[in-house]
């Protein structure tokens, strides 16, 4: 049984796969439903005053999905990634792996399986949101949805790499997850800085909405920076983990 098989067993037996798919599929269903029925829900709730709600549209359905799913999804991804990548938090388990394999051999399957599962969960939610939107409201732009999904997938991979980097700096699982989330929040705020913002990884998150709404594809700078940041964070985490004493 090699380390790839161990990681597949980890995501199945710790129910990680169900948690991630559950979150994204739930919001994949909720997004189109809220886009279609929100005016009725508000009316039946008897909210006082007049609320100006946008009319239901495929773009709104997909936007609702991505906006809601990523908030909870990234939190879940960060904690799940930290529980696999911050393996020094349990020194005895760390000794088992460290005395039998190199850090690269230990980390590679963990990165790939966690990031791959998270991206697959996001894609499955996107497909469900797309199908439901088509059935209830109208068909979203398929190519724009595909491009937007690719941007979010890159962002998810970066989130896993950042949590990995934090795991090499701090050996606590919650600590690594929260530091990773904190870094993503700071990057999100920094997106508002003129000139710099469009180059930051967080700019990719807004790209999904913009593309589905018919916007131009101007994300090459953020894509490049995200890929470089992902590679750098992964490389740094391997170096730092190798230097750490347990």
């Amino acid at each position, binding site marked *: *049984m*090699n*380390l790839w098989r*161990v990681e597949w*067993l*980890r995501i199945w*037996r*710790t129910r990680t796969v169900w948690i991630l798919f559950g979150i994204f599929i739930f919001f994949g269903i909720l997004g189109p439903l809220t886009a279609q029925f929100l005016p009725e829900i508000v009316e039946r709730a008897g909210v006082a005053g007049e609320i100006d709600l946008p009319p239901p549209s495929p773009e709104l359905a997909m936007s609702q999905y991505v906006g809601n799913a990523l908030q909870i999804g990234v939190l879940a991804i960060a904690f799940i990634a930290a529980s696999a990548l911050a393996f020094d938090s*349990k*020194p*005895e*388990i760390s*000794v*088992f792996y*460290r*005395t*039998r*394999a190199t850090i690269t051999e230990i980390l590679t399957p963990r990165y790939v399986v966690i990031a791959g599962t998270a991206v697959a969960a996001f894609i499955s939610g996107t497909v469900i949101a797309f199908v439901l939107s088509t059935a209830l409201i109208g068909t979203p732009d398929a190519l724009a949805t595909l491009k937007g999904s690719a941007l979010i997938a890159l962002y998810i991979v970066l989130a896993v790499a950042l949590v990995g980097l934090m795991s090499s700096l701090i050996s606590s699982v919650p600590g690594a997850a929260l530091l990773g989330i904190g870094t993503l929040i700071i990057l999100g705020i920094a997106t508002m800085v003129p000139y710099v913002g469009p180059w930051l990884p967080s700019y990719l998150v807004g790209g999904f909405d913009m593309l589905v709404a018919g916007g131009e594809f101007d994300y090459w700078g953020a894509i490049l920076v995200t890929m470089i940041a992902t590679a750098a964070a992964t490389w740094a985490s391997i170096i730092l983990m190798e230097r750490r*004493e*347990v």
Partner: protein
Amino acid sequence: MSTNAVEATTITKRYGNIVALDAVTLSVPKGSVYGLVGPNGAGKTTLLGILAGLRSPTGGTFSIASSRVSVLPDTPRFEPWLTARETVQVSATLADVPNSPAAVSDILERTGLTDAADRKVSGFSRGMLQRLGIAAAVVSRPDLLLLDEPAAALDPQGRREVLDLVADLRGESTVVFSSHILDDVQEVCDEIAILTRGSLVYQGTLDGLMRDVAHGYTYRIEIRGDTGPAARVLRACNWVTQIEVEDSVVFVSADSTVELESELVPLLADVGVPVVSIGPIEQSLEDVFLDVTR
């Protein structure tokens, strides 16, 4: 080609101002069972961690003439969602040794885990985790096996099985075995090193420890009546290093057993001392250990 599996020269490890290991120099012969003995906090785990490559020494050098090193921490833990069989399989796969179902079952049987082989590790007791740790370490067929307090958490039966397992590995692997249970060390180790407060205070065989460090040999002589004449005649002998008198008993110490065995009885007979009993006092390993680590 070196006959030693481990050669460490002036290994030092500092954590800030704390000296965990202070210029420790030791040699572990290939194929031996080597005991690393010392009180809690002596530096045993730190030394094993350095030999395992898990920690870097602050100073000194060491070499390991082994391609495959296995380590068992004092409180082993494993992925709780793997079964015992899977854990052993992972260990064997990572060590790149054959891990056929029969080989894995065999090692699980040797460590008394056959009944729990397909149970998830999350429900294992500390003793079972210790056995699983030994199974996972042994299955990789290590040239050098580093065991940190392997029997500390086990019940008497488990302890016996572990000691037998360690004894079986003699010649097959070099075993460095840290413990503060002196009976275990006495039973399975060919050579020992005693660490105290980060310093190596003895290295060699157990016989050598008893001979060289136990401050010579002492005989106990019980006398009927006055002990004065016996004490006086013994004090006059240049080979006697120490005399103690308690009631009707005289304790006489010497650097070697030669004079005690050949001269003591004739000497007492010459002065007509009525001797009730006479014989050597066996110093226990514990006495010597406490003496050395004090």
